[in-house]
């Protein structure tokens, strides 16, 4: 049997997912444009007073990050479920735990990571104090990782259902809430001149836990979904 070693296999999976996400060059721009537009909605909706916007910028940026994660989590496994790729993945000799991690990593690179990289730009758009920008980027980097992992659990549990779309939000939004609290807390602390380190440490701990546990839950969810 010409079985691939697990790291090589996961590398190929990651590449596959990234290529699928970015088949056309124009698509790298789409998520970013999407963030920019959604963030632009807030001044329009809340009123453009610069000082209030700046105060609420951490919350706004975090809520948008969370929603965009919610949006893209739903699709992580869906097309693979529908075209039979997921069956093949379950039958693969490599442990599903690591394959699940590769899927989530790809999704994170295309959403959370990109957003974290570009968050300084959006922060400036909302008038956030420059002192808080490193905390913002760091909290997004750590926090969106947790979001993607938790979102993966929801996606795995609902992918086999005929109507998963709304359900996944119901399942995972409660689990997103602590991340939102600590994430926007970190930025608010930095804004207030305090250290963001404790918040980032908590986000880091949550990420470690999520990396360790979520793939197992995702794997269990996928097996259940394919069975249905």
């Amino acid at each position, binding site marked *: 049997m010409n079985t691939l070693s697990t790291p090589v296999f996961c590398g190929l999976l990651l590449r596959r997912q990234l290529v699928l996400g970015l088949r056309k060059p124009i698509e790298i721009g789409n998520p970013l444009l999407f963030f920019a537009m959604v963030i632009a909605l807030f001044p329009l909706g809340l009123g453009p007073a610069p000082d209030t916007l700046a105060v609420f910028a951490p919350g706004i940026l975090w809520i948008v990050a969370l929603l965009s994660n919610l949006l893209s989590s739903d699709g992580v496994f869906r097309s693979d479920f529908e075209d*039979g790729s997921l069956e093949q993945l379950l039958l693969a000799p490599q442990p599903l735990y690591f394959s699940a991690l590769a899927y989530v990593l790809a999704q994170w690179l295309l959403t959370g990571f990109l957003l974290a990289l570009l968050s300084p730009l959006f922060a400036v758009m909302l008038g956030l104090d420059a002192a808080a920008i490193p905390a913002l980027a760091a909290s997004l980097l750590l926090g969106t990782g947790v979001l993607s992992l938790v979102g993966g659990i929801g996606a795995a549990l609902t992918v086999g259902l005929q109507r998963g779309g709304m359900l996944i939000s119901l399942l995972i939004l409660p689990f997103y809430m602590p991340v939102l609290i600590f994430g926007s807390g970190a930025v608010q602390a930095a804004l207030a001149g305090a250290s963001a380190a404790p918040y980032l440490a908590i986000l880091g701990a949550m990420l470690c836990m999520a990396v360790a546990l979520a793939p197992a839950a995702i794997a269990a969810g996928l097996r259940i979904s394919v069975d249905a």
Partner: protein
Amino acid sequence: MLEADDLALERGGRQLFSAISLRVNAGELVQIEGANGAGKTSLLRILAGLSRYGFSGQVRRRAPQLFLGHHSAVKGLLTPRENLAWHVSGEAGNSGAEIDQALAAVGLYGYEDVPSHTLSAGQHRRVNLARLYLSRAPLWLLDEPFTAIDRVGVTALETRLAEHLGEGGAVLLTSHQTVAVPHPLRSLDLATGLLT
């Protein structure tokens, strides 16, 4: 290579089959027969290990297997070559030349680099069937492999099955057509549970 004892399955309040026992040996082709809705796909998924709840009986898998189901597992956004090179089945690691050869063998010469979603229905399925030329798994579980394939393609496929059986492989397939291979061919009738 595969042994199953006393399998029974009930779905949607109907007993699909019961008391199915089955032994697939090297060099042997077993065709599962039954009307639409008889439970062929369900049985194949149990044998492959994809269904784990809701049936009774034992399955012992003694050899690595290749499962091709109703769905083609071909990504429309990837080209046929990419589809085979990065296949999620984990049993890859073929060189580019091997993949091109396999694609040529299923009649996709010249289509290696077009996005798969522009292929016709039969060509789409052929991308998946190319895995029969790449896999080294001795046991093949194929669910209606001839669907949407033209006559020439069916003959080529039968040749490939015969070749695999000749090399000591085994094939378990479902099909509504008769399969012509110069090898021992047994058929399992789901309605009666008899293997002939």
